[in-house]
Each structure stands twice: as C-alpha cells, then as structure tokens.
C-alpha cells in the first residue's frame, strides 16, 4: 500500500511536470529531499504571487496570502535547521522536474483572466498539495534519516494537509 502511494505520488509529480522518465523519489537522501521540499515551497509561493497579481477575487487573495505566509514560515525553519546542521540542500532530478513543470504552468496561468484564472489556480493548488503531500508522507518521511529533519517534515505535512483542505474549499467556491 505504501509502495502504491509512493508510486502514485511520484507519477503525479512526473505527470504534472511532463517529465519523460520517472525516477524513484524514495531513493533521495536527506539533503536532496530538503532541496525538493524547499523548491516545492518556493513554487507555491510563486503561484500565490501570480494569483495576487491577476485575480480580483478576495477569497483567492486571502488564500494566496496564506500560502505565502505559511510556506515562507516553513522554509525559514528549514533553512535554520540546515544552518544548524551545517548542511547544504542538494539539487536533484525531482527538484528540476518540479521547476520545469512550474515554469510551464506559470506561463499557462499568466494568459488567463477572471474566473478562468481563479478556477485554474484553485484546482492546481488542490492537485499540487495532494501530490506533494503523498510524496512527503509516503516517499520522504519514511526514508529521512535525520530525526530533526524528519520532525520538520512531519510538521510541514500538517500544514500542507491543512492547505489541501483549504484548497478543496477554494475549488468549491470558484466553481
């Protein structure tokens, strides 16, 4: 079951990003996992800034501000922990794949306006958080070796699950 969920999460990420070849996220080391998480946070912050720039829907604005506030808080904790451990996150296939997918999606969403943008943004937030949460819960947390890094990911997962629930509410509101 865990393997199935891991593969599901990986395939979601890969399909989101359009990568041709799937590699195994569960084989990443702690520093690569930290890099993926940091990139995933930054991507969602970029989506949120795009929403603030394009959308005129107050609910979308509040949601986007929450995404910025929370993801910045998580990244601040992650950087503090890496500093304490005197470690540098390591770039890897999954970070690159996420970034590529994000660039494509930002280009697409930048062309949308009004309700079309709001729906695309909300639906992507839901899909994105579902995919990342599956990845974090089933591929990353079971394989993280450092206890403090694992604890940070567990706390982060609580936040991102809350975001997933919030995104579900947003999708209902804009549809």
């Amino acid at each position, binding site marked *: 079951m865990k393997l199935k969920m891991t593969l599901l999460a990986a395939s979601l990420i890969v399909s989101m990003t359009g990568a041709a070849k799937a590699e195994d996220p569960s084989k990443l080391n702690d520093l690569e996992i930290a890099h993926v998480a940091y990139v995933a946070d930054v991507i969602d912050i970029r989506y949120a800034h795009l929403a603030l720039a394009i959308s005129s829907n107050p609910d979308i604005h509040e949601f986007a501000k929450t995404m910025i506030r*929370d993801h910045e*808080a998580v990244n601040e904790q992650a950087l503090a922990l890496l500093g304490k451990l005197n470690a540098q996150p390591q770039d890897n296939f999954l970070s690159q794949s996420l970034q590529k997918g994000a660039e494509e999606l930002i280009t697409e969403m930048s062309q949308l306006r009004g309700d079309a943008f709001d729906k695309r943004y909300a639906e992507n937030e839901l899909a994105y958080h579902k995919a990342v949460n599956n990845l974090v819960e089933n591929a990353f947390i079971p394989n993280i070796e450092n206890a403090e890094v694992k604890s940070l990911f567990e706390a982060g997962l609580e936040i991102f699950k*809350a975001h997933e629930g*919030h995104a579900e509410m947003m999708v209902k509101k804009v549809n």
Partner: protein
Amino acid sequence: MHRRRFLQTSVAALAATGSSSALHAATKAPTHHDITIYRFKFVPDTLDVRVGDTITWQNKDIAPHTATANDDSWTTDELGKRQSQTLTVTAGMSGDYYCVYHPHMKAKLTIAS
C-alpha cells in the same frame, strides 16, 4: 398587614441573597486559561470563562495563526511560532472564533452568566 410584612421580608431576603451573589461574583478572583494552538487546532476548542478572566493563546505550529471572533469583534495579533498573546475576557467575547488564515480552525468561548 401580614401580607405586607411577608412581602417586605421576602424582598429583603431576595435583596440580601442578590447582594451576596453579586458580592461573591465581584470578589471572585479572575481565572487564567491557556489555549494551545497545535496541529491546526485550538486546544481546548471550547472554554467556559467569566468576564475579567484572562486567556493566553500560544502557537506551537510553524504556521502563523490568529484567534479571531467570527464577527470580527475581537482578535489576537498574528501569532508566529512560539508566540503567545493574552486577552482579558469582556462580555462581548462569547461565541465562536477561528483563525483568519485557516478558516477551518474553529473554537468557542462561553461566558458564564
């Protein structure tokens, strides 16, 4: 005559009882309450309080939160990780409250009469 005396006695007794209760309520020391914000929940999520009591909300999550009345009549500031804020209970604080950043986080204060 008897009826008047009875009424006078009853009113005096009632007044005395009322005064006693009022005095008791007025002299009862305010109580302090702690509410922890953890894993996107207010703990406890329901709390019985009295006007004059104090409540401290402490955030143990990484994500910032608030405790804000549903009708926006009162709120804490933004509480970052490990931050806390204490408010003194006023009569208008009875009712539901939530986190403005995470609207699914809900809780309730009930003010004893």
